């Protein structure tokens, strides 16, 4: 089983649109499992019409809770808390659960044993059936911690299911940025498809995400979305890719049909077979060549990684 992850230094570059199209195209030739690793803003479900089969609470960590009956209002907890989560009330102290990182420093220091650490249900994760394969996705309750942990959980479930069913490919739709959830989404990937746009920030974002995939030694391919909005910058991005030795998998044109497909709730490659889809097919071919064919070659050469 191979694992690919779709990433972009910033959001809104069309990551989910492309991941959904890859899911559609890949599922026509092989068995796939999908994971939506953007647990902050899970969008894949909007175009895959998942049918939930199973769902479970996600306990991300703990939060401190002060028992007002036993609290002697000494303020030690507020002193040791580095996240500003302990707030003074009229006749005692209270923990604000939003900034609380569950470190338990206050729990250990409280001289009155007035603090308990309680499990915090921070979201839910789901296993769903889609017409392309199983989808693992999740919702993090807004403003809660630990999205990286939830991403790891979703991915772990997806991997287990893929191994169990002997699936050929796991496609992970990653979150934007380069922080903790992105690292969790990228871990273990055989290939990262990096989506960028021909904008002044596009090249900048691409360089940051590329530094991340290089840092974790993940092979990368680049796709320029809406390439014709600014052909000069698209050329610059292409040039940057050549310089860095990263293959350019394709350039998608800007086309309203992408939004139309989204409004209709289907992957764009299913909605139309126009130029966008033709390019997506080429990109899928490249992804396949890089992950599946190449690794088969190295295997036949007797190379053991």
């Amino acid at each position, binding site marked *: 089983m191979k694992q690919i992850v779709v990433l972009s230094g910033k959001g809104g570059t069309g990551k989910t649109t492309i991941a959904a199209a890859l899911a559609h195209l890949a599922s026509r030739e092989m068995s796939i499992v999908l994971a939506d690793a953007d647990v902050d803003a899970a969008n894949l479900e*909007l175009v895959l019409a998942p049918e939930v089969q199973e769902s479970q609470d996600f306990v991300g960590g703990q939060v401190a809770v002060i028992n007002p009956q036993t609290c002697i209002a000494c303020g030690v907890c507020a002193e*040791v808390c580095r996240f500003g989560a302990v707030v003074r009330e009229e006749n005692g102290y209270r923990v604000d659960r*939003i900034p609380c990182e569950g470190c338990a*420093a206050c729990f250990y220091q409280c001289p009155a044993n007035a603090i308990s650490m309680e499990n915090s249900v921070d979201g839910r994760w789901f296993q769903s059936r889609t017409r392309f394969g199983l989808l693992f996705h999740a919702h993090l309750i807004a403003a809660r911690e630990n999205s990286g942990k939830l991403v790891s959980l979703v991915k772990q479930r997806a991997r287990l299911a893929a191994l169990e069913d002997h699936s050929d490919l796991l496609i992970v739709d990653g979150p934007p940025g380069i922080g903790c959830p992105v690292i969790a989404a990228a871990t273990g990937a055989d290939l990262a498809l990096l989506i960028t*746009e021909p*904008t002044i920030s596009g090249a900048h974002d691409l360089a940051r995400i590329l530094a991340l995939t290089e840092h974790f030694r993940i092979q990368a391919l680049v796709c320029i979305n809406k390439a014709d909005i600014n052909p000069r910058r698209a050329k610059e991005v292409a040039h940057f890719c050549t310089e860095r030795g990263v293959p350019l998998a394709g350039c998608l044109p800007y086309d309203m049909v992408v939004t139309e497909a*989204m409004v209709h709730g289907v992957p764009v490659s299913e909605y139309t077979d126009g130029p966008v889809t033709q390019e997506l097919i080429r990109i899928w071919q490249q992804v396949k060549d890089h992950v599946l064919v190449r690794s088969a070659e190295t295997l036949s050469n007797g190379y053991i990684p």
Partner: protein
Amino acid sequence: MIITVASGKGGTGKTTVATSLALALQEHLAVQFLDCDVEDPNAHLYLRPTIQRREEVGVSLPVVDFALCDYCGRCAEVCAYHAIAVVGQKLLIFPELCHGCGSCILNCPQKAMHEEPRPVGIIEEGQAGPIAFAQGILNVGEPMATPVIRQLKKRLQECQPGVVSILDAPPGTACPVVESLRGADFALLVTEPTPFGLHDLRLAVEVARDTLGLPVGVVINRDGVGNTGVEDYCTAEGIPVLMRIPLDRRIAAPCSDGVPLVEAFPSYREHFQDLYNWIVRVQLG
């Protein structure tokens, strides 16, 4: 006045709106701009500040004095993030897991631990014309953005009359976004009129209005694509739509070259000033 510009997801034009708002207000007000999208700070590409100061952001990392440590394992026991492991006569610290809470140090019976800062990013400060500019940059490979944002926010010129601070928040709705919104007077949410946009706007409203109790207003970018979902939602929720920016290649092209909206289309200057006046008048009395 602190205005945080946020959006459930990225790519909605949040930075375009934030930078243009700052540029439109600079003529009449003292403006401060903080780019809190520390995983990917982009506002500098539009505001082109001269950076005058750089400062490292560190989180405290425990350091062990092995002459004092008797490997009792207490530090590992109290660490909620499993950042310390004690096995036999070995003690290991995993820096990426450490949140810098200091609990291990407080709990060590031998007083064998102290803290040293570990760099996780930098803060850059300077001027973009009259705008006081600052941004945080998270080091690549570092998982936690919040400490950098927290440090950046120490630069807020709070509560001075006539000063407006504009914060460009990161995408999403997790900890870094919450940190960028906490303490703001108003949350300006940028979205696009599509199902993805609506889905993410709902989440942004959940954080800004429902969790943090902030007044919110919406800017619809790429107006004209998609459907009326966002509009209907705002009407139903009583959330004001403060501005619409049409989908137009003539806007997309200069923006992609780093030309701020208000420079490419000066008429927007007035729209942004109106938007600000509305916030001051209606929301804050």
